[in-house]
């Protein structure tokens, strides 16, 4: 049977992707950030997931204001890197797992999560930057990837509780899939950042570190934090952090922290990163 073994959380700032693509990772501005991801690069070679269920958000790339799905599950064979206005990132095409994705759709919808199913979708930096941070610059991504796009652009996004509960249902779905698969769930976006208005540039290290603490060992209560706390304290775009709760909900109540990293800044944003493995409950 398929099983969820681990979770990764990371910010997905577009400038990080540009630094990788342009060979700037050793520059003084970027070096401290990329050093924080050396562990996960080693760890992923050892843990070798067959499938990554990658929770991210689209940034006015695949979705305009015409259709705004709250939860969109990528069910296709493949997903191309999107042209976000300056040409697609030079990264491999993402290969999906349509059978597992269809099974997850069936299972989650029957579990009361009203998903949107997507078959043609280009994936933007929200999805490809985490892949680059973890896998580096391979010719092909070394595993299959199921994109799961969450609306966090149009307020209100789904609540933290909804995301956490969806993670729990996702786990049930994966564990009832008959193929023997090692599945990881990644949650991306955040940490504190605000990209708009006179308050742009807001960084809240206290909020971010409290969030990192509580995601590990106080997740059920963290899930109950209302949106207003995110947008007020972590910035209007910091509300992306609700996506990390899908990853956390999919793991055991007890997890082991294999890596924790926090860095300011990447462009306008605070960067956070966690590697979590299931522990026996």
């Amino acid at each position: 049977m398929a099983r969820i073994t681990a979770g990764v959380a990371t910010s997905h700032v577009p400038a990080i992707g540009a630094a990788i693509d342009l060979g700037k990772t050793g520059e003084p501005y970027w070096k401290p950030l990329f050093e924080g991801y050396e562990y996960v690069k080693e760890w992923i070679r050892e843990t070798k997931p067959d499938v990554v269920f990658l929770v991210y958000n689209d940034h006015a790339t695949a979705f305009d204001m015409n259709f705004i799905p709250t939860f969109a599950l990528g069910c296709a064979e493949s997903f191309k890197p999107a042209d976000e206005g300056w040409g697609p990132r030079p990264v491999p095409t993402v290969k999906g797992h349509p059978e597992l994705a269809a099974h997850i759709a069936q299972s989650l919808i029957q579990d009361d999560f009203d998903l949107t199913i997507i078959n043609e979708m280009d994936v933007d930096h929200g999805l490809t930057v985490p892949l680059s941070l973890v896998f580096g610059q391979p010719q092909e991504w070394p595993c299959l990837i199921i994109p799961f796009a969450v609306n966090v652009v149009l307020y209100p996004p789904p609540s933290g509780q909804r995301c956490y509960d969806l993670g729990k249902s996702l786990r049930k779905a994966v564990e009832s899939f008959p193929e023997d698969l090692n599945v990881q769930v990644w949650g991306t976006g955040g940490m504190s950042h605000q990209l708009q208005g006179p308050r742009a540039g807001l960084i809240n290290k206290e909020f971010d570190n409290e969030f990192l603490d509580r995601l590990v060992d106080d997740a059920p209560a963290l899930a109950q934090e209302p949106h207003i706390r995110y947008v007020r304290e972590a910035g209007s775009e910091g509300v992306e952090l609700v996506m990390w709760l899908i990853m956390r909900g999919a793991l055991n109540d007890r997890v082991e922290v294999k890596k924790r990293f926090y860095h300011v800044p990447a462009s306008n944003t605070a960067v956070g990163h966690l590697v979590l493995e299931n522990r026996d409950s």
Partner: protein
Amino acid sequence: MSNRIPQPYDDIPGTIIFDADMARQGYHLNQFAMSLMKAPNRERFKADERAYLDQWPMSEDQKQAVQARDYNRMMALGGNVYFLAKIFSTDGLSFQHAAATMTGMTQEAYRDMMLNGGRSAEGNLYKKEGE
């Protein structure tokens, strides 16, 4: 005035939350911005901004805000920053550059602020703190 119901985020300083009511007002502004994802549209926009804008059922205020590159005004009129990013990308400007213009800081001063840990949360969470 609108029938907008007061929201708990109204007292966050320097911030416009892009909610469904703002999205309603900004629909054509955001769809115009999205059209700039395509190179031929960017060329047409650059060749004659006003003529391109006049093809969209946007308000005069919205069109003038675009021509003035007044991002705070665009957001007050329903623009969302991820959509408006298509405009400053068309201008060849970075996200950090655009964010700096929204704060009234120079790009250098804004970049230095970020390098020094960003804008502090202290005094920036409630409008009344800034009074």
